[in-house]
């Protein structure tokens, strides 16, 4: 019985989030049914944010540590840090959603957002294949529905259907891989699997498991060639859903991807040093990273819709971040977390700006951003901060993230020359990326506004959110210690 009281202790933040979700749903349906969408969104978002904030407080003030049922549910400083980041992204998404008008089903929308958050929190807090898969499915199913939430928009349906079909397939691959691992190790616990693989040569079962795992999680992080859903979902889904898929869910997926391969498949790593490749998951992920960087950056050049451009740039960024997994050291985990968190902040901010422009000018075509700087100077400045951070221009967070990631990747291996080809490719490709980010900023700052363009009115909450995110991206770039110290300290005390 003590185990169950412990379970409540450890899972209290998740329980808080789920309880809030049900509460919000109930209040919205019972009390606010007849009110306007705006009021309902404001109340629901406020309540949900409070719930998330309570969960954050619980994690920060009374951190419970421990591991239950052979690692099915784990709590340590590192996991807490990631969970806090996830909750913060949920709150930011809720703030972004307050002013939206795409749906009348407010309670359901917020409920799904919170269940997705609970799914992510369980996802990062486990070292067990079964729990991992279930929480991943909880996350995915919530996200599919969130993507389809704009019932009046055909694009939204199409996006959600594509997302669902590709997602279902990749989940099948993942489950197949997990079943092979279970069959091989007779356990679903990652450390046990690692011990079972250790000492045995790379057999076909493990090889297949590696490939299917890479497919399943590669889909979640939108790495090429499993990225086909991303452009449609980024474009079709309502702005808050797309922002959430692009930010919070990326953080969780990258973290669990790292855990899964670095802990569970530690003995089957192999190396990606050219030309002496040793088989394992490292060369598979290195190849995925290289393809993502090339494809994402090159295809992004041709995009005319800002959302699709962000989708392809997400593929490219997934490629850079995969380097952090390929290197699989403590430092590279720190670099990966710093990268994915600052990346998520910038992407979320970009979606917040897109939401306003779309609302006022009808679409996210880059041509519709013409002359934005003269109509909405603050919004434009913020967009410039987000895009330049994504491009990796100092002093913004994206620059330090790239520098630190590449430095740790090069420094990770006993022979620094091993991964040099990947780092060179990554830096070369990020030089390419400046072109398409600058193209957007050219429309914003250089091109004169269209004659009939009306002034842009952005809601005050949205302006605050955008400013907050831009300030965060700038501050984290100038003082990386603000985020880097907690990450390093958490990794130190959790021992990976």
């Amino acid at each position, binding site marked *: 019985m003590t185990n169950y009281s412990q379970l409540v202790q450890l899972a209290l933040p998740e329980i808080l989030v789920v309880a809030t979700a049900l509460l919000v749903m109930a209040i919205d349906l019972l009390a606010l049914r007849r009110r306007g969408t705006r009021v309902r969104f404001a109340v629901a978002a406020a309540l949900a944010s409070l719930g998330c904030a309570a969960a954050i407080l619980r994690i920060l003030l009374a951190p419970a540590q421990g591991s239950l049922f052979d690692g099915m549910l784990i709590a340590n400083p590192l996991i807490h840090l990631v969970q806090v980041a996830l909750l913060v992204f949920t709150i930011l998404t809720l703030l972004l959603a307050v002013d939206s008008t795409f749906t009348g089903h407010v309670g359901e929308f917020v409920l799904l957002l919170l269940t997705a958050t609970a799914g992510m929190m369980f996802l990062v807090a486990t070292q067990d294949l079964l729990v991992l898969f279930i929480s991943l499915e909880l996350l995915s199913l919530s996200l599919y529905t969130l993507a389809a939430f704009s019932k009046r928009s055909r694009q939204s349906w199409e996006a959600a259907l594509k997302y669902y079909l590709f997602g279902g397939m990749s989940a099948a691959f993942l489950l197949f891989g997990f079943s092979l691992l279970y069959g091989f190790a007779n356990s679903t616990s990652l450390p046990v699997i690692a011990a079972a693989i250790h000492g045995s040569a790379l057999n076909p079962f493990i090889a297949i498991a590696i490939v299917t795992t890479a497919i399943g999680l590669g889909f979640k992080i939108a790495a090429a060639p499993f990225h086909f859903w991303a452009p449609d979902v980024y474009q079709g889904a309502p702005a808050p859903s797309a922002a959430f898929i692009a930010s919070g869910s990326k953080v969780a997926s990258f973290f669990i991807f790292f855990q899964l391969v670095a802990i569970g498949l530690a003995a089957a790593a192999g190396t990606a040093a050219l030309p002496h490749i040793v088989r394992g998951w490292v060369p598979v992920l290195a190849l995925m990273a290289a393809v993502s960087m090339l494809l994402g950056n090159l295809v992004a050049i041709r995009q005319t819709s800002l959302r699709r451009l962000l989708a392809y740039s997400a593929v490219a960024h997934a490629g850079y971040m995969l380097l952090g997994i390929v290197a699989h050291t403590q430092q590279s985990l720190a670099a990966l977390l710093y990268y994915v968190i600052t990346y998520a902040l910038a992407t979320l901010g970009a979606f917040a700006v897109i939401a306003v422009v779309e609302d006022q000018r009808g679409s996210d075509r880059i041509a519709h951003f013409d002359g934005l700087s003269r109509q909405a100077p603050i919004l434009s400045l913020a967009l410039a901060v987000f895009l330049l951070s994504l491009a990796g221009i*100092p002093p913004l967070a994206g620059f330090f993230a790239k520098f630190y990631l590449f430095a740790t990747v090069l420094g990770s291996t006993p022979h620094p020359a091993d991964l040099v080809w990947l*780092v060179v490719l990554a830096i070369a490709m990020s*030089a390419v990326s*400046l072109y398409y980010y*600058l193209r957007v900023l050219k429309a914003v700052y*250089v091109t004169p506004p269209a004659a009939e363009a009306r002034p842009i009115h952005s809601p005050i909450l949205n302006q605050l959110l955008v400013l907050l995110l831009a300030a965060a991206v700038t501050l984290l770039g100038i003082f990386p210690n603000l985020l880097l110290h907690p990450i390093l300290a958490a990794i130190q005390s959790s021992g990976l």
Partner: protein
Amino acid sequence: MLAWTIYISFLGAAALLLLPKTSVTAARILALLTALAGFALALTAFLQHRTGEMLPIVDVPWISSLGIHYHLAADGISLVLVLLTGIVAVTGILFSWDIAERTNEFFAFYLLLIGAVYGVFLSADLFLLFVFYEIVIIPKYFLIATWGSTRREYGAMKLALYSFIGSAMVLIGLIAAYVAAGSRTTSLADLAQFHFSPHFQMLAFPLVFVGFAILAGLWPFHTWAPTGHVAAPTAASMLLAGVVMKLGAYGCLRVAMVLFPLGLGPWSHHVLGLGSWRDVFALLAIVGIVYGASVALVQKDFKFVIGYSSVSHMGFILLGLMTLNQIGLSGAVLQMYSHGILAGLLFAVVGRMVYARTHTRELAALGPMNLNRVLPFAAATFVIAGMAGMGLPGFSGFVAELMILIGAWHAYPLLAVGVGLGIVIGVAYVWRALQKAFFSDSPTEPAAPPHHHPLPPITLPEKLGAIILIAASVLVGIYPQVLLNLIVPALNSPLFAGLRTGSWQ
């Protein structure tokens, strides 16, 4: 105090953005005051610090877990270039007094660029230097794309991409050096003392050197320069040629050559008669000198003449660096200063004094306008600037080019002939441009094209700017010791020890 050159420029830029859009005059005055304050700080430091050794400014831990410090310091070379930045910044604002469209944004980008340039010259930490170096790219793009002329968006994007590709190469080299030295420090002085393996230096040196040299207009990576200069508004071309190209040359000297001196050493075998990276880059520099001058000789567009002359003059700097002897290196730094001043002056004459009034830069169209009579001040300024650019005694260009020539004569007697050729062609293109643009004996002289609006006279800010630049060049031309007293001790400082013991001649 010197650190405030950076902060004051950034603060000025921020203040300009907060100004109401309509207060054009206030924006100009605020920008001028900011630039003047930066110049005053630079000049004070320059006058107070007469020994040329490393002058510490700030050193605080920044990102401690990576060993990155916020470390600013200035030696003689930095001081010379900081002073140059101050002069060009002030005169650039004087020459853009006529910017009327989105004035405060223009000057905000301008000051942002200036602040970052100060930052590069003052950084003593490699990471910090790179941060400032990259900040330069973005304002440069917007200055050209928004306020430029001929094919401005193309020119701006080309420049931004060339710069970014160059800095990507530098970044690869920096990360590699940081990791190879144990991931403990990014301090320039500490890394310069680390003994990187000769094999590593042989690979890293060309990467970082070319990365920086792209911005210094090294042939054949110079093609951004003419299009960028031509597209840019006057002040931006002045900055571009005056200080931004110097950033590249400064990076070559301060980073590539200081960190990887053995990369300059001989290869184990000769390829096409070239025995080291040093030979390769010296040859490219000379090709740049002769090529730039020859192309300038046949241009129809006045600004292209100056654009290509910049490529030619930057070739002198790179050649001076590759001589690896004291006189050649000092000459290279002196040429950075000299070309910064003179290119600024030439672009000011062409872009502001002539083009902004006549709205054409076609040499053939300028001829019949009898500019020597209509705009005598512009003509006189161009004559002086042209003479200085040709390298006539009494101007800074003469001393600098002479020193580089002597240095090159010691290092590469055969190639020095090429330099001589470049100088001769240099005289020719200046002469040609001068005659076609200002002193053309047009047959239709009495019936000069009717001007509905007679050309407005040269304004006071323009005269002031021109006089400052001419004075800055003549002063150094007459008494070069004023800069050399700072440059030579800096080259003899411990920072350059690896270069001196490794491959100095």
